[in-house]
């Protein structure tokens, strides 16, 4: 199998389309969706530590309050915000609203997500 053949096969499911806003929205939506699923699974694992008693749980809470985990919280909240707002965009498109302006709507989603994420970051890291 040639290297070019491998690359063409590997990218068949996800062809980069650098000039299509819809492609960015699609990829970001999938990426943030995967983050949310991973977080949900991690959340279950963490909750299971409750069965080990209060001491272990309090240690965990201390860890979660550390700076690296707070930055992780910011990233998680950012993913939630984008995924939710882009979901609204997809619903609007499905309802036939803004179908000629899907790229503009994606831009609005990005700007709104960035603003809300910045607000969340300030609240989590500095407030």
């Amino acid at each position: 199998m040639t290297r070019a053949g491998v690359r063409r096969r590997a990218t068949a499911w996800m062809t980069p389309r650098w000039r299509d806003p819809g492609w960015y929205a699609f990829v970001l939506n999938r990426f943030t969706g995967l983050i949310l699923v991973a977080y949900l699974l991690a959340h279950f694992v963490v909750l299971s530590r409750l069965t080990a008693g209060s001491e272990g749980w309090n240690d965990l809470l201390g860890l979660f309050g550390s700076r690296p985990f707070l930055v992780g919280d910011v990233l998680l909240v950012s993913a939630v915000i984008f995924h939710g707002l882009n979901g609204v965009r997809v619903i609007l498109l499905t309802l036939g609203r803004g179908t000629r302006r899907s790229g503009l709507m994606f831009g609005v989603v990005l700007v709104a997500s960035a603003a809300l994420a910045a607000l969340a970051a300030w609240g989590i890291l500095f407030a």
Partner: protein
Amino acid sequence: MPDPTIVLRVWRQQGSDASNGRFETFEVQADPRRDSVLDVLERTWAEQDHTLVFRHACHHASCGTCTLLVDGRERLPCVTALHDVWDGRSSMTLEPLRNVPVVADLAVDPGVMLTRVAGLPLPYVRAVEADARSASGVTDDADVGTAERFEDCLECLACVSACPVASGDPDYLGPAVLAAADRAIEEPRSGDPARILDLVNTEHGIWQCRSVWSCSAVCPAGVDPAARIMSLRRRVWRGDHRSGSAP
């Protein structure tokens, strides 16, 4: 002043197996002011390699046969001016469409998609045309079968190639077929809109679309398949397939 030389990177593969494919480089003289991408490709075939396989027919964006990926973007090379896609220095990459079976090199087999279009219960001619044919003594449509040409659609399959969902679900009806279905419901002629909605109201039909909108972005005929898919969803929500009240 001699024409500049363009370096073409052309995807070559024998048969339908892409795993043994590779890019082959050709150097061709081209006039960016006058040549289309198809002109350059045909010159490559004529002057350098008669084994190069690609499809073309009308040369004026009517048949949709020659559609290719030009530097990763679906285009009709017959009407794509070289100066629009080539900066005069770098190479240009030509690949076959994605999500459509490749016959060899740049030639794809549109049979799967066209069979799906033919699977929709669509009459070939409008009711008024059928009346006119009947009045003139022509009653047998066996020569043209039951396939429908969706007027604006070139059946070039650029939309299918651009759709990331079509890459992951080989059973997905695809933007071209779904757009044709909505158009057929909009103007049912002698077709059955409720039955067409039942055919597309499946997990491999309208609900598989992820609203990427790439199909509409690359459509050379302005069909806007994505908007057509959303239109079909609204028809289903309204219950047109149950009441038979479409369009």
